[in-house]
């Protein structure tokens, strides 16, 4: 699947902050803190982690769609040989949708209730100059067929409320694929759906990737989904990638205490036993401890952990963990 040319997307040191001021106190939330990752051609990277860890803001940053008062403060985002962070607005608009498709979490808010789903996909094609008029509408039907919507010609004339949640999510995937972008970013595309429909959508994404050779950034909090579709996984905690590597390796041999804790938190593996729950809760990003952000909850914490932030240390080829157990002068 991979080739040896440069990766399709190369994110380096991405940092995005939300600064707010209330009653004279400046609060800086660093939602994304020095995040780096690559996505190769035809590769599926899962961005995993609990809510508030910075997954969505990472994806929004790649498209430069972070809502104010959010601001990308540093980093570079190389995509197809250009840095998206220095591109002018016009060029960037030609990337969004046409070269990078996206699927957001809530299918209802992403579709316009007053237009048929066929018209909305056709519109996406027209905006990017991919097709017009009758040709765009015909292509919309093809796309609905591609995402396995039965009777696509009839369904194209339906309004969003006439479709089930699973079908609406398929329509959004069809819209994201409309211009055949080489990269699609999907933010929790199945979280709101039933288990069987969720599995259908995941199977669909896997099939699209195989048939069209596209690359996928899949955001999910569910490690079961990671196992099902991802080649590689990056686990985020408090704005940083704390562990990354090949998905089977990370899931079978997690090296960061947070990843281990997340896996141990999943019910059902050994029924009837107490879960090794991670104590406490996700920290306030505006008041992080000086050392490792996971230290207050970490079962393996030792002296070095409170002194400075751990770097990402290699634990096996292509697999790193941001934890002093695996490296650092302190050890």
């Amino acid at each position, binding site marked *: 699947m991979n080739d040896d040319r440069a990766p399709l997307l190369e994110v380096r040191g991405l940092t995005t902050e939300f600064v707010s001021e209330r009653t004279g106190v400046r609060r800086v939330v660093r939602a994304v803190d020095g995040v780096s990752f690559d996505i190769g051609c035809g590769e599926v990277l899962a961005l995993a982690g*609990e*809510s508030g860890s910075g997954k969505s803001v990472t994806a929004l940053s790649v498209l430069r769609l972070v809502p104010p008062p959010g601001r990308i403060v540093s980093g570079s985002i190389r995509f197809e040989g250009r840095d998206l962070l220095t591109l002018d607005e016009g060029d960037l608009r030609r990337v969004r949708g046409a070269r990078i498709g996206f699927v957001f979490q809530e299918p209802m808010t992403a579709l316009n209730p007053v237009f048929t789903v066929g018209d909305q996909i056709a519109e996406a094609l027209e905006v990017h100059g991919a097709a017009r008029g009758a040709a765009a509408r015909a292509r919309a039907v093809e796309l609905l067929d591609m995402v396995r919507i039965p009777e696509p010609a009839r369904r194209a004339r339906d309004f969003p409320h006439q479709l089930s*949640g699973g079908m609406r999510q398929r329509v959004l995937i069809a819209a994201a694929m409309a211009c055949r972008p080489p990269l699609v970013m999907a933010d929790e595309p199945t979280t709101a759906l*039933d*288990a*069987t*429909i*969720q*599995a259908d959508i*995941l*199977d669909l994404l896997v099939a699209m990737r195989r048939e069209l050779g596209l690359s996928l950034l899949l955001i999910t*909090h*569910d*490690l*079961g*989904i*990671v*196992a*099902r579709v991802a080649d590689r996984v990056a686990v985020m905690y408090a704005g940083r990638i704390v562990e990354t590597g090949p*998905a*089977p390796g990370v*899931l*079978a041999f997690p090296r960061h205490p947070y990843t281990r*804790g*997340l*896996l*141990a*938190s*999943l*019910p*059902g*593996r050994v*029924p*009837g036993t*107490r*879960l*090794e*729950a*991670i*104590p406490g*809760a*996700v920290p306030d990003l505006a008041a992080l401890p000086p050392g490792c952000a996971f230290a207050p909850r970490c079962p393996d914490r030792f002296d070095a952990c409170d002194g400075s932030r751990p770097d990402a240390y290699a634990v096996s080829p292509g697999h790193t963990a941001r934890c002093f157990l695996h490296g650092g002068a302190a050890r």
Partner: protein
Amino acid sequence: MSLIEVTGLVKTFERRQAPWGRPRLIRAVDRVSFAIGEGETLGLVGESGSGKTTTVRCLLRLIEPTAGSFLFRGEQVFGLPASRMRALRRDLQMIFQDPDSSLNPRMTAGGIVEEGLVIHGIGSPADRRARVRELFEWVGLDAGMAGRLPHELSGGQRQRVGIARALALAPAVLVADEPVSALDVSIQAQVVNVLMDLQQRLGLTLLLVAHDLRLVRHLCSRIAVMYRGRIVETGRAGAVFHAPAHPYTRALISAMPDPDPGSQPPRIRYDAAGFDPEAELGEVAPGHWAATSAARQ
């Protein structure tokens, strides 16, 4: 006799396709029967809209059932007068899916947990405070949090306040409708541990509604699978997971995402066209029942 015996429960709703249209009757719950013994845990699973919440809301008489019988310790609950129902609710408590909307935003966590004791005139103020402290400890909340308002607590802490409130009157049965689905994975695990501790400590009987099969497998001794208002399969959790008999159950289990690499079973799809709402439960193995169509026999 089981602690809970539900027989032939039906709940219909009228639904109009359009404001001027003729109302259509839909059977949200259709001839549902099950029993739960003292100290047992039954997990009710099924896709969205299959009738799980409607079933438990009928049992607690938050909505009125259309037909059927619910014996609680042998007493018929359906049709009980409001006064007797209030007394019975002490023994049948519910925790809700969304901790945020089920807690009074202007009451402190301690006040919320104490409220039921006050309403039922239980104990002196000092007794009640001691009881609240004990409940906080059971659910793993710091006593110092008693003075906080719900919005000053995290989601997991709010859900624990909801559980402590439900336990205040020492109920025999806890009905939990998706108690952790709104929570993060690490916080879910904390709440799951609280529920397991309580089961062991108090011998609590639990009726758990959840769409997450992994959670149900973890907590429940028995499972009932609902589909379009009907129970299509029921039995011991291990039996249902390892030898699912109904095609819908098989589809559901095969869709469950499993983080163990390589252990994902192949997908099985369920053809809804083959669903027979008239199929009756038949025993496929001792204590394991599944809907089988008369036509197929």
